């Protein structure tokens, strides 16, 4: 962190492995976070379709077309994230700002969709305490939503720094690390969308 003074954008970071400290740290954090989501996904699967649950079932509340659209938007934000990284790496700061903002907005659209979805489900009588489905669904997707929200704040901070001209090609690693996090959150959503929404019952 403090000691790493980067003179140029080339790959050797003066570390033993050749991988930058911040990037390695982010990979480690993501590995840890995998198990965090894994625990909640396991809980969801364990209780999925268990008999004797009162209240709405998944098929009563899901709107697969709607969630497919918001999921698609979230996936597209990974594309814009890659474009932002490519932009800073070749020194195109205008496009960097555009793609960072686009990524944050796509993320925000996803979160807006999730808030709408939660409200709808609640109107259909599904709350945290209704049944096992409500408990596992809201806590799992809610925690994922919090991860996305943290990512949006991070992206907006990066965008603000880009607007001030404080991000240059030499800082592209910072975008890369933010991107790692963002892609991870997207990948987790692919798993959640498949397991929670698409697995029948």
């Amino acid at each position, binding site marked *: 962190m403090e000691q*790493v*003074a980067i003179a140029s954008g080339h790959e050797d970071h003066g*570390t033993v492995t050749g991988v930058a400290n*911040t990037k390695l*740290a982010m990979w480690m954090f993501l590995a840890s976070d995998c198990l*965090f989501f*894994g625990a909640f996904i396991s809980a969801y699967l364990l*209780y999925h379709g268990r008999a004797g649950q009162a209240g709405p079932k998944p098929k009563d509340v899901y709107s697969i077309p709607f969630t497919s659209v918001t999921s698609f938007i979230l996936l597209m934000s990974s594309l814009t994230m890659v474009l932002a990284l490519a932009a800073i790496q070749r020194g195109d700061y205008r496009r960097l700002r555009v793609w960072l903002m686009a990524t944050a907005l796509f993320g925000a659209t996803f979160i807006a969709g999730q808030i709408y979805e939660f409200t709808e489900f609640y109107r259909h009588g599904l709350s*945290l305490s209704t049944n096992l489905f409500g408990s596992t669904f809201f806590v799992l997707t809610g925690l994922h939503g919090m991860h996305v929200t943290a990512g949006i704040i991070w992206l907006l901070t990066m965008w603000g720094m880009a607007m001030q001209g404080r991000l240059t090609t030499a800082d592209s690693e*910072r975008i890369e690390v933010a991107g790692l996090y963002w892609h991870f959150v997207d990948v987790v959503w692919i798993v959640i969308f498949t397991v929670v929404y698409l697995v029948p019952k």
Partner: protein
Amino acid sequence: MTTVAVPGKVRPAGLLRRPTATRGFWSWFTTVDHKKIAIMYGVTALLFFVIAGIEALFIRLQLLSPNGTILTAARYNEFFTMHGTTMVFLVGMPMAVAFGNYLIPLMIGARDVAFPRLNAFGYWVVLFGGLFLYSSFVLGGAPNGGWFGYTPLTSTPMSGGFLPGHGPDFWAVGLILMGIGSTTSAINFIVTILNLRAPGMSLMRMPVFVWMMLVVAFLTLFAIPPVTAALIMVFFDRNYLTNFFVGGKGGDPLLYQHLFWIFGHPEVYILILPGMGIVSEILPVFSRKPLFGYSVVIFSGIAIGFLGWGVWAHHMFATGLGPVAITAFGLSTMLIAVPTGVKIFNWLGTVWGGSLRLKTPMLFALGFIAMFTIGGLSGVTHSIVPADTQQTDTYYIVAHFHYVLFGGLIFAVIGGIYYWFPKMYGRYMNDKLGKFNFWTLLIGFNLTFFPMHFLGLWGMPRRTYYYPKGYGWETMNLLATIGGFIIAFSTLLFIVNILTSRYRGELAPDDPWDGRTLEWTIPSPPPEYNFAEIPIVHERDDFWHRKYTEDDQGRLVRIPSGGAIDTPAATTTGGGGHEDGNDEGHGIHMPSPSYFPFVLALGLPLLGYAAVFKDPWILAPLGVIVLLFGMYAWALEPGSE
């Protein structure tokens, strides 16, 4: 979070000036020096060790004789819960992190850890998590559901009431906070060990302690998330009426036990592997022989790291998992005893035929081997399912894990402090007092915990706050209580020894024990930048080979200092990568202290209190503001002043 500050590029904002003081009382709040942070971890762990010890003494007094009346049942529940929780999360783990913090950079030839501010942040989170946990005693009831916090006991809402007070809430949130601290230090250690090794310090040349800390860091990284998830579920069940563990709604309380023990069993290795690392450093030095089977010790440690994930259900044999699962976990439990046993033979092989110097650190290391072996033998009996089912929740279990964790970890830690104290302060700890400390501790420890094997086999249950007359448990309980007070006396000796030796101990040279690893090549106490010049490593036990060579008959011969191999040109690099000078350290650029690890960490317990007391209007916004301020100030402050 991730700043790569380039000096001169960031404008020096007045608000974000970095503090510069590296001495004096206030410097402790802003320091990012791994050695100072290590001392803070160590002192904190020692204080909590005393607190947990006092709780244990109350437990022992209560059980001194049948029908004890010192504690009420409710207070007894709080004390055994807090004793266990404190010993695991506020003594064992922080103590291991203290050793790791102090020694990893010194042993691999680095100037600091990879993320100095994150390091400080981790410490403050653990400290605040501990204070948060203990504040529960005055803020609505201490945790009282056991350190394992089984559901549905802990997860039933307060109104439905198995457990009075906010205890389980404080427990769940406090453990999540400390988990955040542990995870940051684990990430920091992994990156430091993989990325910041000195030239020539290949993985298979690293000291065993560093290897064990690498394994521990990975275990921590993967063990904390499942328990964090479980604690979130408990907290939601209790406070927001979710149904994760509500049997009546189809929920499964056993899910909690799986999630908890998937953390809980690797946690055992998180606690013991640092102790194994410490002992593996002490034994070769005081036997004047290299560690017997270095690579076998390393690979056994890694094997324990992997197998540790496959044995968790032996904590749950009494829950009716079914014959297949029980057989599988019984076998894996036998299997993990193999690499552990291998290590014991490696240590014996190291001592065998060595020219032993029985100084205090060596005594503690030998004590570790003996006590840990007893604990390991009683441990492997748990793989025999019928025996395990009989032993479950009896004092036999209490005896077993105290032999592993006290006889193992605590003996290693105390030995390690005696061993590295001269490096930390340039003074020896008193060896006479140290030996007295060792023998009283060994006797007190065995007197306390050996009788518990019998008590357990005779049927005395754990966690019982009293026992009636006439079961024949009186004598053994009396012995255990006497032993407990001998341990307390011995601990007092240890603390007195630290305090007196710190200022009046005999002065020690830089290499007081004729050591083998890099930390002994630098002055005591080490300068802030550790190494004036980054060393170049040529061999395993590099420092030893700089001092000694073998003659024709294979006998050790000391290389005269100033000899060819010893010249600085051959053993150090000028420059070392990230500093601009090498004039006795004056030109070395170390990261400046920072206020914001403290500030950022302060936001977390505020959010914790907001969660426990359901206060979304004052504490929660305050916590978020402190957190955001800390985060942005952290990211935007200049790289150095």
